[in-house]
């Protein structure tokens, strides 16, 4: 369990050659071994979704995946959303609609919403609400998150 294996994680287009125990979670590897601390750990039970990242195009809970399982896959985290200083439409919409307060759950919501909308740009409002119900936020009461994601969805479709 404690013997380390060499793997390469590809995060936001950059390769990170790291050595990890087989039991190390992807979330810990992204944060501790690759230094990308924008991905947050809220429960380690796969419930809150704060650690959501996009792996090979699918939003996944990085606390429920081992780092070794993600070797060779394309990983995207919140750090890769903006284009330099230009915010992604989803980030911009969260700011405009006050979709964040403390900001801890925000990276997870951003990656969840972006991942789903890239795959399903014309998702219905009801289905979107279903998807967003898979992550927890304790500050906003959700309505501004929902507003922001709907606004960003329209913006992303318009591109």
């Amino acid at each position, binding site marked *: 369990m*404690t013997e380390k294996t060499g793997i390469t994680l590809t995060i936001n287009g950059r390769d990170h050659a790291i050595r990890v*125990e087989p*039991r*190390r979670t992807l979330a*810990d590897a992204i*944060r*501790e071994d690759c230094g*990308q*601390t*924008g*991905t*947050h*750990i*809220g*429960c*380690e*039970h796969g*419930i*809150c979704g*704060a650690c959501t990242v996009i792996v090979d195009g699918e939003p996944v809970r990085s606390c429920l995946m081992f780092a070794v399982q993600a070797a060779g896959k394309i990983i995207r*985290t*919140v*750090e890769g*959303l*903006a284009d330099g200083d230009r*915010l992604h439409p989803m*980030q911009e919409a*969260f*700011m*405009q609609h*006050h979709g*964040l*307060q*403390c*900001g*801890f*759950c*925000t*990276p997870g919501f*951003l990656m969840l919403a972006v991942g789903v909308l890239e795959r399903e740009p014309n998702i219905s409002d009801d289905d979107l*609400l*279903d998807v*967003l*119900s*898979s*992550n*927890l*936020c*304790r*500050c*906003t*009461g*959700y*309505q*501004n*998150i*929902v507003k922001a994601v709907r606004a960003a969805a329209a913006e992303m479709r318009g591109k």
Partner: protein
Amino acid sequence: MTAPAKFIGRSVPRLEDRPLLMGRGRFAADISFPSQLHMRVVRSGHAHGNILSIDTTAARALPGVHAVWTADDVADIPPIDFRLTRVEGLQPYRQRVLASGRVRYVGDPVAAIFAEDAYAAEDAADHVAVAVETLPAILRADDEPQEFLPGHSTEPAEVRKGYGDVDAAFRAAHSVVALELIIGRHSGVPMETRGAIARYDAGRDMLEMYGAAKVPHWNRDQIARLLGRAPSSVNLFECHVGGGFGVRGELYPEDVLVCAAALRFQRPVKWIEDRRENLIAANHSRQQIHRVRAAIDAEGRILAIDDEFFHDQGGYVRTHGATVPDLTAAMLPGPYRVPAYRARGHIRLTNKTPGGTYRAPGRFESTFVRERLLDAVAAKVGIDVVEVRRRNLITKSEMPFTRGLDTLGTDIVYDSGDYARLLDKALAAIGWDATQKKLHARRAAGEKVGIGLAMFVEKSGLGPFDGVHVKVEPSGTIELVTGAASVGQGVETVMAQICADTLGVHYTNVRVIHGQTDRIEKGFGAFASRVTVMTGEATRLAAVSLRAKALAAAAELMQTPVDALDIVDGEVVRTGGKAGPSMSLADLARTLTNSGGLAAEGRFEFNHMVYPYGVHVAVTRVDGDTGGVVVERFLVAYDIGRAVNPMLVEGQIAGGVVQGIGGTLYEEFLYDENGEPLCVSFADYLMPTAHETPRIEIILTEDAPSPLNPLGLKGAGEGGANAVGAAIAAAIDDALGQPGAVTQLPVSPQRLKAMLKSSS
């Protein structure tokens, strides 16, 4: 002679957002130092018992384990003291940083592992063998008092408050309404768990802790005291904080342990709580049982309220002392006249997680009690739930209204308010009569739908003072340093808005520093909805002073009378847009570099609180088959005095409402008969998701600015949560057609089905 408001009152975007959106936030877990050790706390698996032995041999032998501590290793560290509401008799119940002799709840820290890696520390924790002689778990706060600790009862103290001749009022009453009401055990449960990283710099003999929140200065002073150091040799640093809600940032055993370890090992020590720990070791709140009676006249006017309640404190009395029961007793009368009042709150120790505050502490509870009582009075005398409130509301002409009670060291004087007017606005906004008709028709068609309302008075802006330093940097940036803290609510933006308008700059040009004990000597942090009021006014005063200094200096340099000058967008210009020479604040600051620079301080002292107020209205639908409740509509009308940033105020309210919905319908920390906690993950402590959340309608009014500060500010943090339990309870009653059916929160499906069964 300040500039007209450009930013105060406007929903400008937050200064905080950009780094948080880009993954550049720095939360506690994001802070690391070279060669740091990781701490893991070994926690009691027993609710109550005597520690016979703790065998750490196996844990110590594991690779990567640096040390294992038990109570003997920290015997020199005194228990953690009270920050608020110190009451005689509570001292013996304080918590030491590691349990000594006895464990008092599942989760009680008994040992601490220090290891090279977090995984290794967690492995080692599993190898610590704690032998405990178990004792029966004490789990009910309303049992007869018994021995809790050798020589100490389960009831260390009572909170007593009141005024008027309650007994005479009951003797003279037309009738009496009596209820027993129960509020469940909830907590704030921020999305970020707790965390603390300490390091010791021997070169400067300076101990530092990162991950502080809420009250960094008080915690700095306490850590210094507990570890026998001068406060000036300890600094605390607030990073980004992932939610507070009363829970986060109080001084806990783990904060002290990492500091003590960093000193002893001369290495940085990092502790990040996991979610299971967070749910059993961070403060719980709310759990109370009330036996309340109202004496009323024939028209439903309240003559007196008499409340006896039992406050389930859990296994220790922590930093909040008697705050929650004190606020419960003090705020229970709410917006009503209540000529005579008596509250007797029993603080009771139980073998559960210790209690502290949670957003609207003592108000979520007492509003539920008071508003259930009002609904019962209405039913008793056969009047409408709106009418019973109208008959009892304190009127605008009675303001300021001296309540005859005190709390948190202040006399309760409602500073301003027009409660009836806000009620009218709330009823108009929800369309009370039309909605009732619609619901009536739906009930006739077989649906279980109903509407309920609740009113409340909030409190905010606790002193004793706040200080703010502002200075114009040579770059032209305005640096504002405050001893307040941010738990994610938008402090930086709000302070920048107040400073910007007062001084005459753009708010994005103000850099707000908070939660850093090395930057300002004193600070009272962020709690009790105090920051916008206290820090806001201190900011305004500092900016007024800075503006006067800038204008005086500019007048001399520009050879122009002071009253002919103004500051607009960071430039000193001629008043009224007249042409003439101008000078930027940056240039002025550079010119003054050798004479102390361009800087000022503001200090606001305040011995009272300010009292916002609100109305909550809920429309609910009950599913008779599942016992589930859907909140179809939720409306909050709230008088904020003056909203600096309405978008952020509405954000506070919406967030509070959803936490309130959690506590009303879903969230409860349950225990089995041995005191084993049953809710230790998010799979069994159920917080609302987007699905359970209705669209929250918010009516923000500014009818009653506070007369106690020039901007008229009142606090925004807690009015969203305050009356949710009360309003939804009333709506469920209405849906079931059973007045007074809801007597316990949360209204779980099981409880709701029991109500349906009892009526059929």
